[in-house]
């Protein structure tokens, strides 16, 4: 009986381990894209008014974190976080080397749907 309980406990532990492994794999879902233009300006915030403080170079792989209106938050290959414009994001390639497909958000997105 005691042995059975031990086996059950161990099974549970193994199952949890396997599950956590599966989850940790799916957690790495932030897309990576490659800069396909000479450079991309990185702003400190999601607007043109916020200063450009860094650039991502041609060929560099950047991680896309989140999005706000016309801007994407990215992490450069050296770990610097910044915001790039929709137009600049359109100048990147996905892992297969294809141009990324992005649709505008906000008012531009609404106009694109009905225009």
């Amino acid at each position, binding site marked *: 009986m005691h*042995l059975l309980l031990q086996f059950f406990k161990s099974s549970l532990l193994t199952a949890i381990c396997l599950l956590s492994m599966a989850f940790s794999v799916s957690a790495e879902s932030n*897309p990576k894209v490659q800069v396909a233009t000479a450079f991309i300006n990185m702003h400190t*915030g999601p607007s043109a*008014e916020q200063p450009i403080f860094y650039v991502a170079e041609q060929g560099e792989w950047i991680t896309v974190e989140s999005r*706000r*209106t016309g801007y994407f938050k990215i992490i450069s290959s050296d770990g610097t976080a910044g915001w790039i414009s929709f137009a600049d994001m359109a100048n990147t390639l996905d892992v*297969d080397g294809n141009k990324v*497909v992005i649709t505008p958000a906000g008012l531009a*997105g609404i106009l694109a749907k009905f225009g």
Partner: protein
Amino acid sequence: MVNVKSKVCLLAAMLAFSQGGVAATQGSETDIIEPVIARQAIDVDLHSADWEIGVFAGAVNLDTGSSNAVTGGRFAYHLNENFFAELSYSETNHTPAVKYFNGVLGYNVHQNTFIASNLSAKSSIFFVAGIGDIEIEGSSLNSVVAGAGYRLMITDSFSLRFDLRGHVHHEFGNDDEWAIDTEANAGVAYFF
């Protein structure tokens, strides 16, 4: 001894799980397994966090001259980085409560606020203008709303907000005279 037992059990459990995997692959022994070389392209077209929801509390100066505490909520959609449309509802804490319904269009001027030389946060000063409805003692008054405020982004999703607003309306019970209710409030908001 107990330790050894538990180790054996863990091994047995792992074996049980791994055997399941082996059995699954053995079934398709005759098939040629083609290795997947190309990595799956992950969609870059992320959801854009353009919606803002928030609560606020402050004070409103009624046209009768008395100041009252006011609490409320707001809901906004950011059309682009500069323009946003916002609906808000607030009411005073005295009875009968005066209720304010506002629909405004706002314009953001973005900047970075430096709290220290090495600590900064995204922020914006914004101006709003719109129309509203004020409910006093069962009757409603139309109003024109204008104001300005300051938004400080604590994180990419949470913000602190400070708003100043004026509600211009006809005097209660006297359509010939104009009155202005001034409102000041502070609140938090979440972008999603």
